[in-house]
């Protein structure tokens, strides 16, 4: 209970620090948003007026405090470029990115656990060498390249889907899911290869433990030992890895959205970076950072719950 409390406190402090760091970093960049917005021919008076309107003439800590309280209330700021609420710009895109992330995550879990158990339990030298080799190869393919391969192989050659023909979930939810399966696979396959590697070595490690010999001496079958006893121990490190994957998948989807032309948060982030639309970049970065920090926090809690030795001290 005490650890839970201190972990929560650490989470809040971390989020606070990250927000301050991000805000001041974006506030200190040399380019003045007012000049950028009005163009280089604008009169100094017009620039000054706009600065006042945007609130840029007030001291930094005040602006930070206002931004933070606004952020917590759901006011994510206003885009310089489109003069639009960032929250409004994000609303549809966030859902798409969340859907893609969830799909990728579910596929990663669904692929990695059975394959990892298989790789960990089969005791055949040739099978093992082939599995390890294949695994390393798959791990080395960057998701965005795998996405391009999928576009070519599954899209252009086999015509299972049309690359670029994205359907929004409001219009046709299942059509959207069907399209997102391919980008999700491109993210999930290399990611599961890493999880398989981890699970394989964890199972190998656990199979050599004394309690396995005990279970054998009770007459338990190898399958029941593997699934009922070994897997529970071997999954402990994998749980953390998979949970942290949720954070990695989110960034990978920035790249994958480019490959499959999915109008998600990643595309908005990239275009805002190109356009130097700082409030949008700041808001998205802050949201992603909050997501990542929270995921790490939850992963830690989950490990504690799953492992009685850590849970009970």
């Amino acid at each position: 209970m005490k650890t839970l409390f201190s972990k929560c406190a650490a989470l809040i402090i971390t989020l606070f620090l990250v927000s301050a760091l991000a805000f001041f970093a974006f506030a200190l960049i040399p380019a003045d948003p007012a000049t950028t917005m009005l163009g280089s021919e604008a009169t100094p008076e017009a620039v000054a007026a706009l600065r006042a309107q945007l609130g840029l003439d007030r001291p930094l800590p005040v602006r930070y405090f206002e931004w933070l309280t606004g952020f917590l209330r759901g006011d994510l700021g206003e885009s310089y470029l489109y003069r639009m609420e960032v929250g409004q710009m994000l609303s549809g895109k966030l859902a798409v990115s969340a859907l893609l992330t969830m799909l990728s995550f579910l596929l990663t879990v669904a692929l990695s656990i059975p394959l990892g158990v298989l790789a960990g339990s089969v005791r055949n030298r040739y099978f093992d060498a082939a599995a390890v080799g294949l695994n390393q190869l798959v791990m080395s393919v960057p998701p965005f390249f795998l996405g391009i391969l999928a576009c070519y192989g599954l899209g252009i050659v086999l015509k299972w889907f049309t690359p670029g023909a994205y359907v929004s979930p409001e219009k046709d939810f299942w059509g959207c899911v069907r399209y997102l399966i391919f980008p999700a696979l491109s993210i999930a396959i290399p990611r599961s290869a890493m999880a398989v590697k981890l699970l394989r070595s964890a199972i190998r490690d656990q199979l050599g433990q004394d309690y396995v010999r005990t279970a054998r001496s009770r007459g338990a079958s190898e399958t029941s030992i593997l699934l009922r006893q070994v897997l529970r121990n071997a999954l402990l490190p994998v749980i953390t890895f998979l949970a942290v994957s949720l954070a990695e998948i989110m960034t990978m989807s920035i790249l994958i959205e480019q490959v499959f032309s999915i109008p998600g948060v990643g595309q908005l982030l990239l275009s805002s970076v190109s356009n130097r639309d700082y409030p949008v970049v700041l808001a998205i970065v802050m949201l992603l950072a909050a997501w990542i920090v929270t995921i790490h926090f939850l992963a830690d809690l989950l490990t504690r719950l799953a492992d009685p030795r850590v849970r009970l001290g």
Partner: protein
Amino acid sequence: MKKKRNPMLLFGGAISLLTVGAALLGAFWTPYNPTAVSAAEKFCPPSLVHLLGTDNFGRDVFSRVLQGMGASLLIAACVVAIGCLLGAAIGCLCGYFGGPADFLLTRLCDVVTAFPSVLLALVVVSLAGRGTVQIVLALGVLFIPSFARLVRGEAARCRDASYIQSARLMGVSHGRILLAHILPNLKGVLVPAIVIGFNNAILSEASMSFLGLGVQPPFPSLGSMLSDSQTYLQLAPWYAFSAGAAIALLILGFSLLGEGLQRRRRA
């Protein structure tokens, strides 16, 4: 004891040697000028004349891949050099001296390593602008924490070792202990970490270039080639395959090498 076979080290070394060799070759000689445009030779499929075909400007893909690998490796080397040198220095001092600065820096490193490097690089690029130098500096700085964390742990372990304690009792200065006793101990953890860092740097650089935020055209870069090739995927799939396979090959080589080195260390 019988020496254990280490196929990962073997294959990894061979692939890395091949890619580094190809990149070195590309630095001095390529079959064609990688930036020479030829309208007549647009989208030639792979043949004996153009080993990997030509792209949308009629440029030889093989020559561009060779130079792109060189660029990737050079950038990765700079990134890892920055990350490793600064990270090792910070980690060494933190681990050896401890104290509140150590506590603070360790927490900071923990936070930074929790974030995916592509996201952080995106932030830095949005602040500092795009370009090769920015990418190298941004990724280099982002690689510091992982090295610092690793070295800190090792240095803190060494500090408590009895031979360091006795050296201190004999009045050896801190500087000498760090250089003569702790530094040699770090080699074991640093070598695999450098190889793995190299691997991550190549992936991060390729990702950033793929997003158009890394090496700027017309210089060949594997990531931006891959991004360009996507438009012509139907017309010239070999373009995408060559660029992507080159990235995958670089990563495969260094990941196997890193894995092999770690296994040898453990064995």
